[in-house]
């Protein structure tokens, strides 16, 4: 996400359009691209989803196994989130272990899931201190055209929502749906000059000075946030973004609800 440079001409074009309230792909500043969500796409996964935000495409899969809990949470299942920016998804992505961008993405998506209590990990204990369900939440970027935060978060939420705990495979009784308590939704807003835009494309990300990612729940409460890039926001802008994220989040929630 760092090597690419947008040409000066394209940069100017994006800026000029935005001053008139328009974007390259015809959207208004606060419009989100068409979202598509397909679940159950991977038979070998306990839950899976393929999500598109325009040309950005992400695949998330949930695998489960039995393991030992952490000593400080002996009666809780374990969630582990990873994100891979595979080189298939963009000419700038390289092979190798996850770099800073992929790690930040995984951690921000993970916090949205974890802090909202979306997965009821208390119900994933088999035998306290000994056996709990380990959930591996793996996300692959398939095609990157901006806003991986929101696409990755939505793919993972959709995969979890439709996941089944494979208890019978492990002789632990009948399979049951992964216990879900709520549907956190993540919305990212970027700042270009002094305009706030929702769901930035790759080119818009390159031109933007700062980004704010907000995860909110059904009540409109805030569960996680992450500011990115070396620009800044005013306190008022932040408050406005949070409201935007809560409002837009409600719409997105309906897609997977």
């Amino acid at each position, binding site marked *: 996400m760092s090597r690419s440079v947008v040409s000066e001409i394209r940069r100017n074009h994006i800026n000029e359009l935005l001053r008139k309230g328009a974007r390259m792909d015809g959207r208004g500043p606060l419009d989100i691209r068409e979202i598509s969500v397909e679940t159950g796409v991977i038979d*070998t996964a306990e839950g899976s989803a393929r999500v598109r935000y325009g040309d950005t*495409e992400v695949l998330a899969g949930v*695998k489960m*196994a039995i393991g030992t809990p952490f000593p400080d949470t002996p009666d809780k299942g374990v969630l582990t989130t990873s994100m891979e920016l*595979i080189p298939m998804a963009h000419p700038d992505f390289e092979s190798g272990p996850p770099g800073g961008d992929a790690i930040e993405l995984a951690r921000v998506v993970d916090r949205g899931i974890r802090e909202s209590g979306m997965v009821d990990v208390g119900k994933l204990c088999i035998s306290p201190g000994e056996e709990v369900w380990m959930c591996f939440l793996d996300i692959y970027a*398939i095609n990157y055209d901006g806003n991986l935060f929101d696409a990755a978060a939505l793919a993972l939420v959709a995969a979890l929502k439709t996941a089944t705990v494979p208890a019978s495979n492990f002789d632990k009784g009948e399979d049951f749906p992964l216990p879900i308590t709520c549907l956190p939704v993540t919305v990212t807003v970027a700042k270009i000059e002094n305009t706030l835009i929702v769901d930035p494309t790759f080119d818009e990300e390159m031109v933007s000075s700062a980004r704010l990612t907000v995860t909110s729940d059904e009540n409109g409460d805030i569960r996680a946030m992450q500011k990115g890039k070396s620009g800044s926001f005013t306190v008022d802008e932040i408050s406005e973004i949070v409201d935007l994220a809560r409002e837009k989040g409600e719409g997105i929630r309906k897609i997977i609800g």
Partner: protein
Amino acid sequence: MDSDIVMVDEKGKRADGREADELRPMKIEAGVLPNADGSAYLEIGKNKVLAAVYGPRECHPRHLQDPTKAIVQCKYNMQSYSVGDRKRPGPDRRSVEISKIISEALESVILTELFPRASIDVYIEIMQANAGTRCAGLSAASVALADAGIPMRDLVPSVAVGKADGKLLLDLNKEEDNFGEADLPLAIIPKTDEVVLLQMDGHMTKEEFDAAMKMGVAACHQIYEMQRDALRRRYSVTEEEEVEE
């Protein structure tokens, strides 16, 4: 090897209803990824595979550059949820070997001498695995190369021939593979029937081997037709789109 398991019934049918020399249902779509220079999606049985091509582009790292031709770098990757027990992300010894032999097979058909110092990068992602992923990946990759407009002598269809219950069976699925006695993945250049990928493990007599090669080559020609269909569909769709504009 367990004699209670019957791979082929008295009528010569396999558990999934196939004949001994029948491929699993197969589907190929070219041009599925916006960013890549070329791409393809392939399903065969329960395998789901994506292939993407970037290049010819600057070779990175530089010390791998060849002043006389492009190098072909394939990375075969199994996604973590593609198999029964979660696979740890990142390359393992198996995927390193598979990446190497697929790179070699693709290099045999690409006109690499047209692009000195360049790299042609091929990425194969196994989204869902059910035996035969290396062949599925290679079949998909050659469609992706064609979609990218890379000059090639031909496409490279690939399939494995197996042996189970003492019988040669085309294109084993996972259940068959688990009880199989031999596996022979191969890939050919259909125009000349040259073999560009070949591996074998298990136990075969020379006679069985010769018969297996024959069965594999014939099946490659079937796959070749499906590869060409996918490219034809892709091309005609593009034409229509262009007309519409």
